[in-house]
Every structure is written in C-alpha cells, then in structure tokens.
C-alpha cells in the first residue's frame, strides 16, 4: 500500500527534502498572498452545494451553540447563509417571489422548518390574477435587529424578489448595532451607512481584525471552517429534514406578569419610546427594495390578560413603550407613505408558545393566510386590504 512512498524511483536525499520544504513554503506564502489580495471569502460563500447537489434550506441556518443537534451552523457570513437558502435557486417563470424578514418568531423557533411561515404559505398554492404562483421565502433570523435585516435584504436583492414583507416589532427599532452578526459585518454596515446617510452609534470596535495576518488563509481559517461546516451540515439537513433541535415540551409564555413597567432596563420615568427607537432604517429598506413592493408588518404578539396586564402587554413589552411605539411608527408610516399593516393583536393567545412572539404551526398558518390575503389584495387592487390603511 505504501510502496510509492517506501520505494521511490530515486532514493530520497537531503537535497530532495530541502527542495520540498522550499517549494512548500513558497507555495504556502504565495497562496496566502493571493488570498489576501483577492479576499475571496464573499465570492467563495456564494459557491454552494445547496440548490445544486442537494436542496436549499427552508430557513436561514441557525444552530445556537451546538450545531450537532440542529444540523445548522450559526455564522455571520451573510452571503453563505443566503446562498444555502432555497431563495438562491433558479427563479421559475411562473413564480411570484416573496421574501420575508423578521425575528425568531418568523424564523420559526421550536418549529420544524416545513412548518415555518415561508413553506406554509407556499403550500397554500396561491395564484395571482396573472397566473403566477406565490412562493414565499423565509429569510427571518433569531433576535430582532433591523440593521441585520437590512444586510440580509441587501444580499437577497440579487435573487430577484417580487415582493418583500418585513415583519417588525418595537425591539427591532432599538438601535443595537453591537450584536455579533452586525459587528462581524461592519464593512457591509458601513457601506449602508455611507450610501444612505444613516446614523449608527457603534459602542464597540469591530471584532474583525484587519491586520495582514488576519486576512490570510491561516487568519481566516475559522471562517473557512464555518463555510465547510455549513456545506456539510446541509447533507445532514437533507438526509434528516431537521435543522432545529426541538425539545419534547415547550413552556407557555406567562399570562400573569411581574409588577414591573420597565422595558429592558429603561424606565418610563426616564425614557420615552421616541428616545429609544429610531425608524430611519426603514427608509434604507425602501431604498434597497427600489420598485419592489415592501410591506411593513407590525408582528402579532401574545397579549396577556392576567395579573399586571394593565402595566404590560407581555413579558417583552410594557404598555407605555408599545403603545407609544405603535403611535410613532404609524406617524412615520403616514409621513413616508410606507406600505404598512399593524397586526399586533391579529392572532389569539392560544397560538403563542414560550415567548410573546414564538408561535405554533397553527398560528403561523393563520398569519400566513392573512399575509397571502394581503399580497393578493395588493397585487390586484394596489392596497393591503383588511384595515391596514
């Protein structure tokens, strides 16, 4: 088996060893220099087995801390995340492509991917008047970060959406640019900031090192490993049909709430919703969308009726903040002529699971029906219907 190594054509010499070492070192240096020069990570990220060798994901890969249970890697590489999604497949001629952005509730926490909003809506087989099938792609992701949604939107535009649905809630507008996915994509955020004149207050330095070593293959080995893991977990996801580890029992979000009117650490005596929330990012979304219709949705949520519900709507929101948020956002919508529908109380409490925004499959189906109704209404009559306007 090892004959080729043990009995070479010419005997090994120190000259041979020296030549191998020198050539290997030169090749190593050259490859690293080329890597630094070409910065190929983004381009490499878009070369994927998903949608080619095996099916793309039904939602963006998110594996929490342990991807071995969920067959999905948590990463900050947005091109790779979106390239692994079904949206990166060829668009069919009769397809009306709808893309949805949002938080974990829309991503489908504690739900199998087939039960999340995109697949459920697609399965409802809705056809527009012009005969196109409504195919919905779930590009939501855990945690509500509007800047992150913009980064996803920026990348997703190349996959030719016909409509964008952007599901938001008050927390989405709390400017927190210090989440890992944003800090690890600061160059892309800066691009948006410069192009659209955004004001973003970064409290910390980017963790992405920019020195020469960090740009080499060795410096980028963790990123490259994640790229590889993302491809390999795709095999498992395809084999198992599982991309999220769902526990056998999921607790219910409480109906009785604490006697506390703070939002995070913000007290109504010191802050107002106007101080805390900024809506100017939405404009960037409309700029990115261009002529493509972009519908803003105020996300449905659990509304508690038990103890202290006069102070809070649920564990996430005190009434003062959420009421002010709705009023302020509605004002911005009117000023900017954004397409908007406030669905905050559209669904009954029985649909919610462990948080005020996580829903069961039936809740997602119901939301899907509402959104499809809205899509067809808009495409036929140019308005969202329901009592949105």
């Amino acid at each position: 088996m090892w004959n080729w190594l043990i009995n070479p054509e010419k005997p090994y010499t120190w000259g041979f060893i020296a030549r191998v070492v020198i050539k290997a070192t030169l090749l190593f240096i050259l490859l690293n220099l080329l890597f630094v020069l070409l910065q190929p990570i983004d381009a490499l990220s878009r070369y994927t087995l998903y949608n080619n060798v095996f099916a793309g994901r039904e939602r963006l890969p998110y594996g929490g801390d342990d991807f071995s249970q969920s067959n999905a890697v948590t990463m900050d590489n947005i091109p790779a995340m979106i390239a692994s999604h079904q949206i990166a497949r060829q668009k069919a001629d009769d397809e009306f492509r709808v893309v949805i952005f949002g938080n974990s509730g829309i991503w489908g926490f504690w739900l199998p991917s087939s039960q999340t909003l995109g697949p459920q809506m697609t399965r409802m087989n809705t056809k527009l008047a012009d005969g196109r099938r409504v195919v919905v792609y779930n590009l939501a992701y855990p945690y509500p970060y509007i800047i992150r949604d913009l980064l996803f939107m920026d990348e997703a535009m190349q996959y030719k959406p016909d409509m964008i649905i952007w599901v938001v809630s008050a927390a989405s507008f709390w400017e927190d640019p210090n989440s890992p996915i944003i800090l690890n994509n600061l160059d892309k955020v800066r691009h948006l900031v410069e192009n659209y004149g955004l004001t973003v207050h970064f409290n910390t330095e980017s963790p992405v090192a920019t020195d020469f070593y960090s740009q080499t293959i060795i410096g980028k080995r963790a990123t490259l490993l994640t790229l590889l893991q993302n491809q390999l977990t795709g095999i498992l996801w395809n084999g198992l049909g599982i991309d999220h580890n769902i526990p056998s029992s999921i607790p219910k979000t409480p109906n009785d709430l604490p006697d506390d009117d703070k939002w995070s650490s913000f007290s109504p005596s010191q802050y107002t919703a106007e101080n805390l929330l900024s809506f100017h990012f939405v404009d960037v979304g409309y700029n990115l969308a261009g002529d493509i219709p972009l519908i803003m949705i105020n996300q449905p949520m659990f509304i508690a009726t038990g103890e202290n519900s006069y102070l809070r709507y649920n564990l996430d929101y005190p009434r003062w903040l959420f009421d002010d948020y709705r009023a302020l956002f509605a004002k911005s919508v009117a000023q900017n002529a954004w397409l908007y529908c406030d669905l905050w109380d559209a669904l009954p409490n029985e649909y919610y699971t462990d948080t005020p925004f996580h829903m069961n499959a039936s809740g997602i189906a119901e939301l899907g029906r509402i959104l499809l109704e809205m899509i067809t209404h808009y495409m036929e009559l140019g308005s969202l219907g329901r009592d949105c306007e």
Partner: protein
Amino acid sequence: MTFNLTLIAIFTAGGFIYSLILPKSWRKWTLFIASILAVYALQPPLLIRNMDFILPTVTIFVTVFVWIATLPRQDNQLRITIQWRDLFTIAVLMLLITGLAMTRFLPSEWQLLTASRPPAPLDVFLALFPLALLIILVGGIQINQPRQKVLLSLMILVIIGVFIILKTDRLALAFSGWLREQTGRDATLANPLTDLNWLGFSYVAFRLIHVLRDRQTGKLPDVSLRDMLTYIIFFPSLTAGPIDRIERFQEDLVALPEMNGRDPSRIVIGSTRIVIGIFKKFVVADTLALFALTATNAGQVTYAGGMWVLLYGYAFRLFFDFSGYSDIAIGIGMLFGVQLPENFNRPYLKNSITSFWQSWHITLSNWVRFYIFSPLTRTMLRWKRKPSSDVIVGIGLVATMVIIGLWHGISFTFFIWGLWHATGLFIHKMWSDRTRKWYNQFKKKQGQLRLWNWAGIFITFHFVVVGWVWFVMPDVGSALSVLSKLAGVGF
C-alpha cells in the same frame, strides 16, 4: 490531554531532534523517559482526586511486575537476580515519577506533564519506595518454572478481570462508586467516563497478555525492564495502537544505537506518514463526523436514503479516524527509529470478509489469531472425539470475533457485532472452500474476473458497513430500528 495537533507537533519536533542531534547512545533511554512522561501527559483528567496520576503509575508498575514474572527461570533455579541495569531502571523510574510529582509546586500553567495537579512528592515516594523494595525482594524469591506458569496464568486472569470491569458499564459504574466511597466522594456521582478513563489500557492489556503468554510458551526473548516498559507504553502507539510484538520491537531497540539518524528516507517516510495521518484524522474524519451515524441522529432520520448517508459517513469516518491515528503513530515511531507494524491496508477495497479482516486493525486481528483462534482450534483438533473441521473453524471464528467485539466494550451490541463478522467469515470460508474450482475458471476470463472482484468488494463493503450499526448503536432495539430504516421500514 488527548492526542491532539499540538502534541503531534511536539512529538514530531522531538523526533527530529532525536534523529538529528541526540547522541546515539542516549536513544534507548530517551525513548524510555519519553514514554514514561507521555503516559502521564496523555492521560485525560479524572474527577477522583489524583486518579489521573495513579492510573498511569499503576500501568507502569503492573508492567514492572509482569516483567519480573516473565524473567526466565530454570527448573532447578533457586533464585533469580535482578541485574544492575534493571535496578538502575527502577531508580530512574522512581526519580521520574517523584520528579513529576514535584511539578506540583510549579504554577498550574506549567504543569504540562500531568492531567491535573499531581499528589505530594513525599506521598508518591512513600508509596513507590515499598513497591520498589518489593520488586527487589520478589526478584529474590525462589520461583521454579512450574510455579511461574501458575503465576503467569494468574496475572493474565487479573488483567482480564480488570479489563472486564473497565469495559462493562455496570461493573465500571460500581467500581467507580466504590472508588468514590473510598476517597470520601459522593458515590451517586460515579461515572466511569470521568472517573476511570484509563488511557490506553485496552492496548496495554493486550501487550501484557502477549508478553505473559509468550513466556508461558517459551517464546519470549530476554528483555530488560527498560525495554519492556518502552514496549508496553511506547508513546506513539499508547492511545490507539498498533499492537506490536515484543520480539519485533526489541529488534528495533537493539538497532537504535547503529541507526543512521540522518537517513533522509526515514525522515521523508516518517514525516509523510504523519502529514497523511493528520489529513485523514483532522480533515477527513473530523469532517465526516458531522454527518456520521449517532444514536441521536439515527432517531431523526425520515427516509432510508438519509440513514444510508449517515451510515456511510460513519463507516468512512471510523476508517479515516483510526487509520489516520495509526499513520501518525507509525510516522512518529519511524522518526524515533521504531518501525511499528501496519494496521490498515485499504480494508474497504477488499473483495471478501476474510481479506477485510486481514487488512482492518491488522495487529489486533493478528493478536486474536495468535492467542485465541490458533490455540483454540489446535486444542479442538487434539480432542479424541474431534468435531468436523467446519465446526472447529466455526467455533474458532465465533470465539475470535466475539472477543474482538467485546474488546471494544462488553455489551450485547458488541457481542452481536462479533457474531455478525464470525458468521460472515464462516460463510465465506464455506463458500470459498466449495467454489474454488469454479472460481479458478474465472482466472482465464479477465473481464468476468474483474466484474466478480467488484461484486465482491461491493458485497464485502456493505456487509461491513451494515455491521457498524451494531457497533455504533447503544442497544439492540435502536440497532434493529436503524436496520429496518435502512430497508425503508419503520419510519
């Protein structure tokens, strides 16, 4: 510390220094000292205090006692004498172990040679000194040859007993609980994985049994204590083999002082094996591990194709992981002047299950053939009412393969895995005995021969791969569930 990239880099660098710079006369002692230190450095940390220091020490002293027990004796010999060279080895051993204990006084970040803070040096010395004294005294006890054979048998039984305890979940748990009680710890937290993970014991045990058995049969060469210890705990092969034979290993040790340290062939071949091993283990196997069959993902599979992907993933991951480790061990061994035996020879490309077992974990298969199959079949052949040769072969194969199975862990699934392969080997033996003439016709028809060969490879590979289900699943129920899902049933 596990056999990780850092450690491999240290061993490789050590190998270069050893080959290129070290005086020739230091080589044997260097291997001995490095192996003693490595047996502590490679031991993973354990939750029972000092256990990760005690277990490597026990490995060393069990080896010393086995060496004493295997010293050659004559029928009329009154006493054996431990030679000065071996007494010197014992002194060096004492110094090394006490010295390791003295690293206790270093800052914790400098305690690199032990899994956790070592016990107090005085305690270690007080524990070892009586042992050393006993060794010297035992050396003087009169043991004639017949008594020695009984002693050797007893020692084999003790090693097998310890092996059974460690490899049987319930017994290991009970032993772990007992150890916790003795050390004043909470017995309810007993866990063999964190209390009794005795690094390399499976391999050490088989090497010790080989030495004891070879002394019983008179095949064991004269070996110094230093060489015996170096053989049993030789650091490249301590964690994952191969299982060398002492007479072969000793030939390399004898040749060490004359070895040309600057031989470019040895450097190239050794380094290449290490690089290939690293690639196989840390790139291919660790990547395949992402989609290899586990008890968890077996329950998640929704269709037969998915189960097959997981099973293939497991089969190749196991091969690349294990053969990668073997390549690294062989490569490092070469740099240090020891040519460890090959352990794999393209096993998944063999056209019969018999050829597979001649090329998969070769050194373990050879060991079991030498010490189980051959003696057992020879014994049966000597019976007055000896069974038919088919029955003898069948019994020999079952015994051999079941022992290989149970060597991995004493459980019903490993037992069935052994039976699975014994059945395959037996059927192949019967088939090849009865079809030899017919098969010989193929040799004239190259095209058909090639086709037959590929069919053999396909069948053998899938027989082995399906057999891995018994190897990986924790119980019979889950293994049967996987097997039915592979056939598209039970989703």
